[in-house]
């Protein structure tokens, strides 16, 4: 019995990281109604940055967090100018296609350079042992870091001038423009933040599990499931959605082979989309 509870707790720890990843996706959606199909690849980019930086400098994996956060932001701003800016005001189909094509380019370059080999980052961190079960140290630290970053994002959105401007643009872009908010710049910053979050969560996931260049698709699907659970465009809901997904994964893993998890998650995704088009935890438009 305790085994199941331990598995669920571990699931929640990992779920917090999934929640952080989904926050990146939902932030962009909430501000400009664009679904970022490079999301999975940005997660993998965070993983690769973790692998390369910590490998090259020999530092602790967690020291790569600040450079990945900053680097991810600039990558996101570049993504906005390349793929999203011209799509504003055009059918949603077009922004899907443009981010999709950027994703193809990145995945193509990644597989050409690194192939599809499995990468693994060694993290030596003592775990927490209760009874016969050990909660791995990286899982605990990743969950804590994810929670801290999520709270920082919440504070940024609610208590800073720029964060408020971001929310204003999400609410009504024309009105925001009228009161003097430079909306284009704010949109670029929103994409920057979204990609930075994806990169950082990728870095955290990289300390938990081995990965390949193509791992992004699976994590992207998880992010979509979380986003749908938490309500589109709602970062706090996304974190709760992540916890819910982690709970589910933790509860399911003792009974079902790991390879079925994705099928279960997808079925859940479709069911939730049909039953609660606005998300389970919150209403839309509450960024």
């Amino acid at each position, binding site marked *: 019995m305790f085994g199941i509870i331990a598995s669920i707790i571990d699931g929640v720890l990992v779920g917090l990281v999934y929640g952080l990843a989904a926050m990146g996706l939902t932030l962009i959606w909430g501000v400009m*109604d664009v*679904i970022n*199909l490079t999301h999975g690849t940005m997660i993998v980019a965070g993983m690769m940055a973790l692998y390369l930086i910590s490998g090259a400098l020999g530092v602790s994996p967690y020291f790569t967090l600040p450079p990945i956060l900053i680097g991810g932001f600039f990558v996101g701003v570049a993504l906005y100018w*390349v*793929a999203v800016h*011209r*799509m504003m005001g*055009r*059918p*949603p*189909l*077009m922004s*899907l*296609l*443009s981010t*999709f*094509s*950027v*994703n*193809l*380019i990145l*995945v*193509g*370059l990644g*597989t*050409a350079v690194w192939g599809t080999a499995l990468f693994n980052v060694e993290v030596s961190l003592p775990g927490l042992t209760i009874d016969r079960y050990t909660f791995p140290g990286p899982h605990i630290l990743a969950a804590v870091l994810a929670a801290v970053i999520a709270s920082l994002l919440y504070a940024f959105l609610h208590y800073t001038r720029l964060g408020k401007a971001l929310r204003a643009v999400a609410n009504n872009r024309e009105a925001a423009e009228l009161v003097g908010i430079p909306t284009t710049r704010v949109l670029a910053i929103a994409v920057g933040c979204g990609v930075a979050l994806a990169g950082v969560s990728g870095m955290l996931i990289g300390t938990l599990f081995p990965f390949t260049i193509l791992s992004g*698709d*699976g994590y*992207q*699907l998880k992010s*979509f499931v979380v986003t*749908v659970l938490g309500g589109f465009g709602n970062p706090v809901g996304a974190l709760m959605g992540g916890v819910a997904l982690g709970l589910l994964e933790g509860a399911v893993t003792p009974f079902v*082979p790991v*390879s*079925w998890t*994705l*099928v279960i998650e*997808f*079925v859940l*995704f*479709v069911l939730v*989309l*049909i039953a609660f*088009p606005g998300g389970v935890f919150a209403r839309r438009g509450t960024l």
Partner: protein
Amino acid sequence: MLRRPFFWIIALVVAAFVVSPLIGNDVQLRESLALAAVYITLASNLNLMLGYAGYINFGSIVFFGLGGYICVWLVDAHHWPLAASLLATGIGVSALSLVFGFGILRLRGPFFALSTIGIVEGVQAFVENFQPWGGSSGIYISPEVFAPLGGPGPALWVIYFLFVAVMAASLYLSYGIKISKFGLGLLAIGQNEDAAAILGVPTPRYKALCYSASAFLPAIAGGLYFFKAAFIQPSDAFDLTLSTEAIVICMLGGQGTVTGVALGAYLYEELRGYLLISSTFSNFQLVIAGALLLVIVLFFPSGLMGFIYDRFPRLQKVLE
């Protein structure tokens, strides 16, 4: 339909596909035309969703892969004849997608697109774990199944003509839908779904029917493709490259047009052949497809046919 010139233009193209490899028994030409026929089949069926109804389907490869699996499985494990398996494949996959379509097509725009990405992941994970279909190692079929078609050599010709037949059916289906009331309803959905619903277009039913119709022929093409290969495994069957290429082709030729998609498929096939030969580019196929798509989406959203219509407005009446 017989009086319209476009009907005969399609017939001419199909005739060219049938006759040209027969002249001089050109096997190499046959193989490249077979690939072009697959591209045209996938792209013009994708176009039903993307170009007509304005719904992007990132997972059109599921029809192809699932079709391949069902057909290979029927032929191998149940010893069905090829024709019956192909028909059963098409109907089976179409029926599945109809059921599925009624569920997910209540979702609008981007939500639908997201769930089509999920379908690929979900179905692939399912097949990888489904033991009757060989799990992740796949199914091999023995060469004996080619015997009723006259041995492996002549069988390749039979398969080629079937590919061309499926392509012809796809083009006529696209055209037939475009000039029908159903097609008008889809185009209305593509332009403004709320307005279409208010004007009495039964939008959920039309979308589900369109989704299901766009599954039928790709499933058969997939069945043929993997029957020809005599081997199927999940990573080949659900190779996202192919559905990506179908999207690139649609956008390159001009979404919503029948001619454009066929033209785009032909051009893309030529380009791809050229790139595969060059050693620098063969590793960067995805990169080039992506860059091409990005340029089209950013700067030429109406594709080749948009350009042609602009230059020669009269052609709009002849080339659909």
